[in-house]
């Protein structure tokens, strides 16, 4: 069959990573075009990859008639505009999270996507991680019975720059957003209430920038189950990513991946190596898997596994957490 022609909009760190993964691991995709406002910074690299159509203005990329889909990996505040333009141009969309920091704009995107009849997948890659996918399989197969509790621990090895934090929308929109999606993915339920507890324990500069660096959120789910997410911006021992789903018949626990399976025994103790430090290392498989499933959806004309509405729900939960943090109270979520 002919390959799907993809255009990558935003060729910074993540964009380049997507291009590499698509070229190496997704045979049904031809990385046909790329666009970036600072295209000079990456044009040489893009040409070396064999990408023929390179633009500074993404609207020019959208004019390519053969183009089937776009991957949006630009700064967050441009996602909605580019997504809308892409959908209106009849291109399927893979959009990095978050779709936008406001409910209004995400709903706009959903409207346009519906009218344009294109597929829209959000880059919540952790659903595609081999560990978390396997936990969900156990849940789906009934191995843990009725879900009672979902626990997510998610800690970064180090905080991002203060400049980044200032425009990120805060910890819940930037970091915990993955975990909100994870809770929905594992439970198959919606979040009906949240209570957020935040603290500034890692770096006073983060507090000065108006954000928190440590948080525990407890969530009530529409199926009666309980969930908990705890985040920290700094785990010195590595990128700590664990998920547990506990139920009436048992529990499924995903521990951290290890870089290797080697143990060292000495007079002191038994030791193994630290957890992978950088999210691109930890989630390489997931980044690839999400494209495999996106392409399958295009090919078989089925639903994408995580779509614009999933993107909206995660934002709604994050905003409710922002409110809970401000008021110090439980916040209920209402969905239309």
């Amino acid at each position, binding site marked *: 069959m002919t390959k799907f022609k993809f255009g990558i909009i935003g060729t910074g760190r993540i964009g380049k990573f997507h291009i590499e993964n698509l070229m190496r691991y997704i045979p049904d995709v031809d990385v046909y075009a790329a666009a970036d406002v600072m295209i000079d910074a990456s044009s040489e690299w893009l040409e070396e990859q064999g990408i023929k159509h390179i633009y500074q203005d993404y609207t020019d990329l959208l004019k390519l008639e053969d183009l089937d889909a776009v991957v949006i990996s630009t700064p967050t505040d441009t996602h909605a505009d580019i997504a809308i333009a892409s959908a209106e141009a009849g291109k399927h969309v893979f959009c990095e999270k978050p779709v936008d920091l406001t409910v209004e704009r995400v709903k706009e995107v959903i409207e346009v996507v519906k009218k344009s009849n294109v597929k829209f997948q959000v880059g919540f890659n952790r659903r595609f991680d081999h560990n978390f996918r396997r936990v969900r399989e156990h849940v789906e197969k009934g191995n843990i019975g*009725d879900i*009672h*509790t979902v*626990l997510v*621990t998610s*800690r970064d090895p180090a905080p991002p720059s203060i400049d980044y934090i200032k425009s990120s929308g805060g910890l819940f929109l930037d970091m915990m957003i993955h975990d909100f999606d994870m809770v929905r993915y594992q439970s198959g339920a919606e979040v009906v*209430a949240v*209570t957020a*507890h935040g*603290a*500034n*324990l*890692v770096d006073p500069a983060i507090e000065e920038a108006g954000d928190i660096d*440590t*948080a*525990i959120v*407890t969530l*009530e789910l529409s199926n*009666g*189950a*309980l*969930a*908990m997410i*705890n985040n*920290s911006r*700094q*785990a*010195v*021992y590595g990128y*700590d990513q664990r998920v547990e789903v*506990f139920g*009436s*018949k*048992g*529990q499924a626990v995903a521990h951290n991946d290890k870089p290797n399976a080697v143990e060292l025994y000495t007079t002191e103790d038994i030791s193994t190596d630290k957890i992978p430090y950088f999210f691109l290392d930890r989630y390489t498989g997931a980044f690839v898997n999400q494209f495999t499933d996106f392409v399958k959806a295009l090919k078989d004309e089925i639903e994408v596994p995580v779509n614009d509405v999933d993107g909206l729900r995660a934002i709604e939960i994050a905003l409710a957490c922002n409110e809970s943090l401000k008021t*110090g*109270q*439980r916040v209920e979520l209402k969905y239309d």
Partner: protein
Amino acid sequence: MKKVKLAVIGAGNVGRIHVENIVNKLDNAELVAVSDFYPEKYNEIASEKGWPLARKEYREILKDEEVDAVVIATPAALHGDMIIESAKAGKDVFCEKPLDYDKEKIVEIMKIVEETGIKLQIGFNRRFDKNFMKAKELVETGKLGDIHVIKITSRDPSPPGMEYFTAPGGEHCSIYTDTTIHDFDMVRFFNPAEVVEVYAMGSKLINKDVEEITRDDTCVITLRFEDDSLAVIDNSWEAVYGYDQRSEVFGTKGAVTVENDVFSETTLHATEGIISEKPLVTIKDRYGESYANEIKAFVDAIQNDAKVPVDAYDGLISIVIADAARLSAEENRPIKIKELMPEM
């Protein structure tokens, strides 16, 4: 040094663990008397094992000058008055948790303990578990730096029976006062800072279809300390795979995690997969040694006239936090501890 002469009041499941430990594992103490309102079951076991037989009347024990200290392991509703009587009789007291469900009563107990000068230790045995003691050592030796987040998972293998709710004093019983109470003490054990706020989220999931049971059987509780650090506890009354007791302390320099003790370290590698043993199920199996350790520490404190390692204040705070958690779950709002602290 002279052995401390102990009496065990209440020879049920927990009382018998104490009896066995004192007889077999403690060389600084001697078991001189046992009492229970219904001594038949205990006496059957005691005659086989050569333990002292139980009498019905505990007050005889309190009058006995030979007895130095008592271990109270009766039903919770009886604890408060028994502690007071024992204190007035001049006996040092080790009392199973909770000291009482009523925090005002605990304040009264604390006053009498101070007046009479006796030692009172509360049975928060998990502080004496070798796993949690090692975790605490890592915290104290600075391996974790400043504590940021404490995370505890504490699940029982099966829920209490209906008699738990219908017995006298049953209206006070809840997952917060009976199960989480250990975890409220453990977070304070790991981080000695005071707890200032509690938020509890509870649900009835195990007994979902049982109309007679109205109380929560599953909960997730968040706590904030005065140093701004956080803790989260998740409980369930039914982990079908065993007694799930895991803790984690996370800080600036690292984290310590404690996994479950299991039946054995044997693993089967087969075509079906890699199969290992489940967590231990009974309190005796999982925590038996910690029961011996805590009594030993109690006896050491008596012999050396030192402070007991976990006292009435720890007992009081755990009930205040439990009350706050119960209120929080009922009213769906965070509760500040100072709202519920009694007048001291």
